[in-house]
């Protein structure tokens, strides 16, 4: 079972249609959607893979509740954080956020080959913050503005700043293949 974590401003919000459902459409089956405020560490352990979905540009409520994601530190399942999800992963493992706004289609450059993608990509961006990764992470890709993809050095925990559901659905599918 795959867990899709909704990071939007409230449970079952108008943003859910835009940031959670398109990911669910790619995952297709065997998934559960939970809002981040209702997750408890014991429950998270039940899932084989976890995807943290993005939020609206103006939505910053997840940053005020970063302690709700402490379970990430002890999780063994592969995790993919998209946009806001990447920010949450980065903060949980000691990184900092930077002001870095990108909206619309943009080229990003591959820095290190990885299990999710292996070339430069033309991606859809929608974020107000970037990430300055701590030394627990390696950088996988970057744009002229900020880091675009990271991986935890020891765990299968990935963060991507762009929205793969728009033009790179295969990234989500590649993530689902990780054991």
């Amino acid at each position: 079972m795959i867990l899709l974590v909704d990071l939007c401003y409230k449970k079952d919000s108008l943003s859910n249609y835009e940031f959670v459902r398109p990911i669910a459409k790619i995952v297709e089956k065997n998934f559960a959607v939970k809002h981040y405020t209702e997750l408890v560490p014991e429950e998270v352990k039940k899932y084989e893979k976890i995807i943290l979905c993005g939020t609206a540009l103006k939505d910053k409520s997840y940053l005020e509740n970063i302690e709700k994601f402490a379970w990430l530190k002890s999780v063994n399942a592969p995790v993919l954080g998209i946009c806001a999800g990447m920010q949450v992963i980065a903060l949980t493992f000691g990184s900092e956020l930077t002001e870095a706004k990108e909206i619309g289609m943009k080229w990003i450059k591959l820095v290190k080959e990885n299990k999710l993608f292996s070339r430069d990509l033309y991606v859809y961006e929608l974020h107000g913050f970037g990430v300055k990764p701590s030394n627990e992470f390696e950088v996988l890709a970057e744009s002229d503005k900020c880091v675009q993809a990271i991986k935890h050095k020891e765990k299968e925990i990935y963060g991507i700043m762009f929205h793969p559901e728009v033009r790179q659905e295969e990234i989500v599918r590649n993530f689902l293949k990780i054991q």
Partner: protein
Amino acid sequence: MKLGILFSGGKDSCLALYRAMQKEEVVCLLTVISKNPESFMFHTPNIHLTEKQAEAIGLPLVSVVTEGEKEKELKELKEVMERGKEEFGIEGVVTGTIESVYQAARIQKICDSLKLWCFNPLWQKNQEEILKELVENGFEVLITGVFAEPFGREWLGKRIDKEVVKKLVEIEGINPAGEGGEIETTVLDAPFFRKRIKVKGREIKFENNSGIMEIKKVELVEK
């Protein structure tokens, strides 16, 4: 949260409005009326009907007229959102964008500059599902513009029902929900309409695989 919806009177903005009303408080409709029939951003056939649609729905309409020049019409889009903010206190904008990153990115940037939330409740949604959701929820949607082969004159004025959805999906190479501009639609009734719109007069113009059904006269009737 008080929201305004970018409203063209077509099926996508009406479905987005339906979804938004179930989650937040929609306080006004925002319409940019383009004089350019090939507008990059805005749906045009029967845009004049938005006033009657607003009356049927029971929401105020804020509208701005644009000449429809590619970058200039973005200024008018910003203006209509600003007016929504000033006149109705909107905190965010809803759109019916499905796949167009061109449209989505431009609206996101304007919302960002005005410190407004932006919601796209149909974003990346399966096109066939959109058509089915409209039919299942009793939306009365007419095809009022056709702009590509193989659509002939006979498509103009057709109501989108189960049979029409099936035909649209079968036509290869055409985006069945028409976001690529192959078809345009006008909504006459939906679950949130207080009154339905009855067409009393219409004119069909068609040539070279392209045409519109202009709705000339309507009346609002009780449901």
